[in-house]
């Protein structure tokens, strides 16, 4: 019973953590390259969830109800439109401020976040938008007494999608010319520019990839929980940002690790202690970690070269 219960909570925590991780990658990537926290990233996730809902209801009204086909089309639609959002945000709100004082893009990011939230609120309404379960049911892994450990199809789908996306993304960063350019920009933006890398384009692409991943997280969120509103980007964004900081901001594996940890801490705290204090627990662990490891779990210490 005790072990089965822990296993069930482990499944719950990993599922939640994977969604956080997918969003956290976008925070950490942008920070790695231009040293800025893109506060609008959580709202791109929210936009992605709305785009997915629009696509799904559009497809349903066109009569395309075969679940795998509808999901594939929705995924491509939401990811590409959200990518467009990501590119536009960078072009409109951040690029004109590059080279300005440090806080300017940060304030611009907060403004962009509020703009996106209000845009969704006004255009989609303030009420919760629901989606009935598309992939109900699941597997019973094991039974202990009366307790059945359940792994739902949706949880499997989230795990598979997340691992696949992160795999493709890692390949992109480590094995392609684009990835090399991104890593070069991350090491030294000015030097990369001097060596002939189109830094503006590389930064733009970084935003595009981050937004596409956030939109995929938005689709998974919509399918798994089935209720979205204009405010989900804020809550999820704060958690994902925390995950990125916990893992070591700027580090890609760190973002995923941080996401999983935040998800697991929240879940296990709710499982064995008070449900109400789970956020307090998650943030306390973050604070303690940062006291002992100021750069996060996998973060690098910046060596100041004189």
């Amino acid at each position, binding site marked *: 019973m005790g072990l089965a219960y822990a296993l069930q909570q482990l499944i719950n925590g990993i599922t939640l953590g994977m969604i956080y991780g997918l969003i956290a990658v976008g925070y950490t990537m942008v920070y790695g390259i231009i040293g800025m926290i893109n506060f609008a990233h959580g709202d791109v996730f929210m936009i992605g969830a709305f785009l997915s809902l629009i696509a799904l209801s559009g497809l349903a009204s066109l009569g395309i109800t075969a679940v795998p086909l509808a999901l594939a089309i929705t995924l491509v639609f939401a990811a590409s439109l959200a990518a467009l959002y990501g590119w536009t945000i960078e072009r409109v709100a951040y690029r004109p401020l590059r080279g300005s004082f440090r806080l300017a893009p940060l304030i611009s990011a907060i403004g962009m976040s509020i703009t996106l939230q209000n845009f969704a609120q006004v255009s989609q309404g303030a009420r919760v938008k*629901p989606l009935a379960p598309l992939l109900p049911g699941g597997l019973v892994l094991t039974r202990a007494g009366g307790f059945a450990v359940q792994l739902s199809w949706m949880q499997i789908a989230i795990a598979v999608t997340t691992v696949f996306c992160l795999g493709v993304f890692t390949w992109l960063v480590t094995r392609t010319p684009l990835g090399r350019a991104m890593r070069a920009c991350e090491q030294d933006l000015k030097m990369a520019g001097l060596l002939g890398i189109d830094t503006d384009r590389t930064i733009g692409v970084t935003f595009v990839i981050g937004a596409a991943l956030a939109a995929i997280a938005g689709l998974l969120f919509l399918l798994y*929980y089935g209720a979205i509103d204009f405010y989900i980007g804020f809550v999820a964004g704060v958690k994902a940002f925390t995950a990125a900081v916990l893992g070591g901001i700027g580090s890609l594996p760190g973002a995923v690790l941080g996401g999983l940890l935040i998800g697991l801490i929240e879940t296990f705290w709710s499982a064995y202690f008070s449900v109400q204090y789970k956020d307090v627990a998650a943030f306390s662990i973050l604070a303690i970690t940062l006291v002992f490891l100021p750069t996060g779990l996998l973060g690098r210490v910046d060596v100041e070269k004189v």
Partner: protein
Amino acid sequence: MTKTLRLAGMVLLPFAVAAVPAKAQIQIASAGPLTGSNATFGAQMKEGAEQAVADINAHGGVLGKQLVLTEGDDACDPKQAVSIANQLADKGIVFVDGHFCSSSSIPASKVYLEQGVLQISPASTNPAFTDNGGWNTFRVCGRDDQQGEVAGEYIAAHFKGQHIAILHDNTAYGKGLADETKKFMNKAGVEETLYTAYVPGERDYSALVSRLKAADINVIYLGGYQTEAGLIIRQAKEQGMKVTLISGDALVTSEFWQITGATGEGTMMTFASDPRKRPTAASVVKEFQAKKIDPEGYVLYSYAAVQIWAEAAQKAGTTDPKKVAAELKAGGPWESVLGPIGFDAKGDVTKPDYVFYIWHDGSYHEM
């Protein structure tokens, strides 16, 4: 100084003139959200009040005087409610049929108390409205905690010996509902297995659900709103739980089913029985239908508020708000479209009319 005074006098003079009502008329008001996201409910209240005033005036008015109805729009915004309340009081209104949202009714009632205006709300169910109200606050709808009585006794009678969990979202509405249900359930000799709060506004309740599963829960009583209730039952069924959800009137909206889909089947909630079906409402319902108005929701509650006030004023022989308020509590039960209604010392109805509804295949009906 004198110049300022004179100026102030000039500015205030038109208001003073406007505030004097015509002699042979009685000024009353209907206040509610005529704009904003709750505007449908405001419109229902207005329709009910208008019809009641027309019917009373057709039968000779109150104390031989005709009633004149003024409308106030609070948009369910507490600040606007206070300013509307001040405007209405300045006009010399003796009775307000309103407001809709508890968050508007409560601050407005403080203004009415200061200005000596009687208030009967057709829809505000938060206990604080009358608990912290003055002599002037009444309502013709039930209270959130009266739902708890009905729910608690039902659970005790039908689910004895099962594992029961009580959840709430720590809001005034949700916790109030959960605690009252627990109180009446315990009084009937049934103890819950688990009592815990959850955080509203979240999406992931899987940890909580696994906890319920580990405690082998078959019945959840939830004090909270439709979104969280929908998510919790959906995630519970996805984790393979066989469980019945019971909750309050917040679940009487199609939003609940849209989230749960088929997993919401069999969910039960307490809600007022449909007033349109009561025999006392038959003739008034016909009048509305002749005007092509469906007296749904709060239309008849609003009608009853005006009707009961008029009866009490007639019996008291005055429209003085304090005397009418005393008469409302002492006299009665009052005949209304909702059936006979009496008030306790706080201004709440003595017999709440909550019944159980059940979700089945995408719609809900009375059990």
